[in-house]
């Protein structure tokens, strides 16, 4: 057996690597399927081969590890799958003194070992006596591919779909035959479609023109990138004028299919751009909306606004430190806490500094700039100048795969939704509560509001606190998108002011629509102009826009606003 595989490896051109390993896994699976049962060999020969293969894993050489994985598959041992899984998850160790391989579970500084041969407990070892068997990308890919073939018969359709997609990543004749065998017994639509697409791609290589034609028909409308690549290749004209696809009819069908695919692709890419724009716009709006209150309603040029967002982001970090077991919930908990922290600091700033400066808006700029420097340095002293790692909860990671050409990342999607919720709540507070009424009254006519018994000082503090608190909430969202460090605020302050001014000072709807349109325009330009030029163009457009409409998108109207 060992000899045989040695000769097998010696075959020139059989490059070691994922397809090679997967193929053997597939053969094995095919064999199992043919027998209609999972093989349960207990034979001594297989155990020996398995044991030997295991021993070969005890190395730091990745090439050798790949070979050992191949041997493990060849051994067709009942525990092969468990071992491969353990290797993929980094739970496979070898003892330094005798190079024996174990499945290990880390417990503080020690390891609970399990013998992979018998799956029996092998006692506890000191962690420093064992070496973890590491993997690299190529090895992990091979392992995943090998494990996928085990999953093809999994009762869970999602697992099967993932397995099929894993196999589609590198198709060859063996996989095709496996997929063909699986096709008839597959009862889930999504999985079957995936299999059919894969088979159709394979059929493009058929010698029979009718089969190829049928395959092209099958692929029409498919957004699988591989399908697109193969179809494009088939109609591409080589240097000598010949085509990869010899049959004229098939070529025409392929062109038609490509046309259809291209149409869909450009449709989805427009959707994608729109979503990118909306999500960028949401970030801008979130960053700006607190400012729309402190700056727009109160007239304070709050240069510390960015630092209040930074406080919100750091709050998220601290909350995660406090509840490391519940990362998923930590972000939700952080929202009210960040509101309270940033809002509280905002009230402090208002009571300590701002209240002496009403009616002197430009001086608020100076003072809040000073405050922002101090806040930055405080954070630097507490948390160090380094960025802090804020974890992304599982429910915010990944993307919503609409189809193979269009997916929406969850974190961006949630940010859009989150922004809308924050905006709605803010509108409610300002329009429906007595605080909101007072805020608007003070904004419009301070003296009059005061004479009517509104405690303007109290309203000022709460308004500033509200704006600051919302900045903190925005910081929670930003912590999921970007660095959490002392400079976080600086990178958003300019953009925030632009959004508020573009929308029209004192108008929350203006901020919403302004931020969204700036985001969409920026993203629409980016594919043509690149990220930098797109931003420059947006800035120039903003300058020209303001000179067309000197009071922003939604100016405050009436005689009061004119003077």
């Amino acid at each position, binding site marked *: 057996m060992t000899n045989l595989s040695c000769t097998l490896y010696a075959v020139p051109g059989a490059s070691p690597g994922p397809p090679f390993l997967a193929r053997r896994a597939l053969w094995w699976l095919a064999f199992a399927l043919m027998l209609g049962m999972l093989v349960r060999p207990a034979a001594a020969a297989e155990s020996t081969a398995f044991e030997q293969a295991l021993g070969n894993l005890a190395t730091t050489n990745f090439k050798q590890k790949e070979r050992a994985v191949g041997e493990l598959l060849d051994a067709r041992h009942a525990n092969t799958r468990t071992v491969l899984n353990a290797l993929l998850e980094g739970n496979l160790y070898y003892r330094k003194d005798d190079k024996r391989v174990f499945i290990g579970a880390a417990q503080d500084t020690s390891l609970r070992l399990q013998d992979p041969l018998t799956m029996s407990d092998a006692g506890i070892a000191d962690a420093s006596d064992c070496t973890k068997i590491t993997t690299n990308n190529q090895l992990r890919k091979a392992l995943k591919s090998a494990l996928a073939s085990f999953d093809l018969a999994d009762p869970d359709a999602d697992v099967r779909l993932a397995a099929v997609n894993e196999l589609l990543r590198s198709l060859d004749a063996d996989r095709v035959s496996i997929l063909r065998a699986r096709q008839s017994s597959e009862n889930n639509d999504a999985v079957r479609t995936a299999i059919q697409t894969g088979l159709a791609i394979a059929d493009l290589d058929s010698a029979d023109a009718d089969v190829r034609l049928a395959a092209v028909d099958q692929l029409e409308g498919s957004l699988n990138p591989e399908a697109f690549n193969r179809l494009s290749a088939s109609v591409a004209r080589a240097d000598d004028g010949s085509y990869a696809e010899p049959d004229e009819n098939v070529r025409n069908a392929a062109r038609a299919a490509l046309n259809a695919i291209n149409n869909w692709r450009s449709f989805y890419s427009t959707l994608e751009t729109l979503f990118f724009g909306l999500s960028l716009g949401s970030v801008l709006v979130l960053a700006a909306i607190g400012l729309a209150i402190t700056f727009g309603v109160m007239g304070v040029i709050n240069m510390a606004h960015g630092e209040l967002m930074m406080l919100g982001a750091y709050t998220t970090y601290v909350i995660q430190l406090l509840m490391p077991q519940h990362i998923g919930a930590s972000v939700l908990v952080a929202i009210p806490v960040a509101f309270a922290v940033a809002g509280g600091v905002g009230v402090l700033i208002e009571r300590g500094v701002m209240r002496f400066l009403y009616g002197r808006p430009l001086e608020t700029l100076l003072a809040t700039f000073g405050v922002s420097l101090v806040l930055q340095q405080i954070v630097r002293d507490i948390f160090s100048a380094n960025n802090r790692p804020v974890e992304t909860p599982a429910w915010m990671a990944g993307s919503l795969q609409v189809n193979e050409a269009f997916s929406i990342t969850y974190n961006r999607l949630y940010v859009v939704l989150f922004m809308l919720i924050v905006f709605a709540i803010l509108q409610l507070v300002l329009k429906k509560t007595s605080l909101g009424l007072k805020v608007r009254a003070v904004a419009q006519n301070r003296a009059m509001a005061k004479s009517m018994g509104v405690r303007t000082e109290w309203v000022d503090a709460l308004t500033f606190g509200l704006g600051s608190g919302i900045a903190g909430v925005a910081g929670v969202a930003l912590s999921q998108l970007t660095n959490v460090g002392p400079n976080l605020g600086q990178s958003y302050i300019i953009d925030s002011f632009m959004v508020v001014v573009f929308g029209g000072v004192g108008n929350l709807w203006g901020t919403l629509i302004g931020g969204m349109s700036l985001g969409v325009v920026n993203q629409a330009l980016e594919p043509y102009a690149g990220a*930098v030029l797109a931003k420059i163009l947006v800035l120039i457009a*903003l300058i020209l826009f303001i000179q067309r409409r*000197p009071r922003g998108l939604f100016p405050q109207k009436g005689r009061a606003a004119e003077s």
Partner: protein
Amino acid sequence: MQTSHPAIQLLIGERGTQVFLALLLTVGVAAPIMHLAFPEGSALHLSSYTMTLMGKYMTYALLAIAVDLVWGYCGILSLGHAAFFALGGYAMGMYLMRQIGTRGVYGDPLLPDFMVFLNWKELPWFWQGFDMFWFAALMVIVVPGLLALAFGWLAFRSRVSGVYLSIITQALTYALMLAFFRNDMGFGGNNGLTDFKDILGANINASETRVALFLTSAAALGLGYLACRYITLSRAGRVVQAIRDAESRTRFIGYRVESYKLWVFAFSAVLAGIAGALYVPQVGIINPSEFQPINSIEIVIWVAVGGRGTLYGAVAGAVLVNYAKTYFTATIPELWLYALGTLFVIVTLFLPKGVVGLADKFALRRPAARTVTA
């Protein structure tokens, strides 16, 4: 009884001006002598480091005056003056780059080093002419001036004012910063222009050149100050201040407010450009971070700390804040942001007229500056 010609009032009048001019003259004379005449190690020796530092402060002071003219006197809060400063600096930097000649690391006679490594084959059109000093000097004035005219024409014509104006000036300098950061623009990208060798044939690092640059900065500051003072004392200056206090009222008396604002803005931009041009050879580098929006805000803060609406206050603020920065970053590198931040808050809260306002309070029963004009 009758308002005398502003030219006569330039040197007399305000005590602040007198103090400023006296100080400038003293420093301008003493510093070069202390640097050149006394040997190193002598107690009276002034190191080239200190002198260059003082020269740098002077360019900052000139920049502060420029901002004070538009903000303190005309009420235009420009948060984009660093852009004009940087443009002037770039014009000078381009001249200095061209003077390197074959002494660059690649030894290319025509192309600056960064163009060689970007594989550029020929000099872009906008670099033509900068090998001549007079042309570069002209550009120091023309480029910021024209940009200010174009920008101001757009903004003032449609009566953009207040925070809207401030924010679009930020957008202007921000856009310029992003543009200059692009290596494809042909201004050296992030590294900017550096490693200068000669200015007007003299080694830029030589003591004599440093003295000459220092003296030029002092002269520019003095002349810039007097020019601004002339403007503020003239009838036009009074119109400008009237615009600051009641813009639409000024319009109803028959003044073309836009025109006044535009030319004051442009003149101020030119001053900023000159300051930038003098700054660059003394610090030895110009790079796009000079365009940072935050820099423009800082200039405004110098003026506010010093005392808005008095030219000598702007000078005092620029020197004070920058000296504080130099001093704090060396003595308390870990705490200096606290010191600076607190300084800003304290000045705003307790010294609404800046530090010169404080000085005025102590100067007993000094006749108000304005009464002198009568």
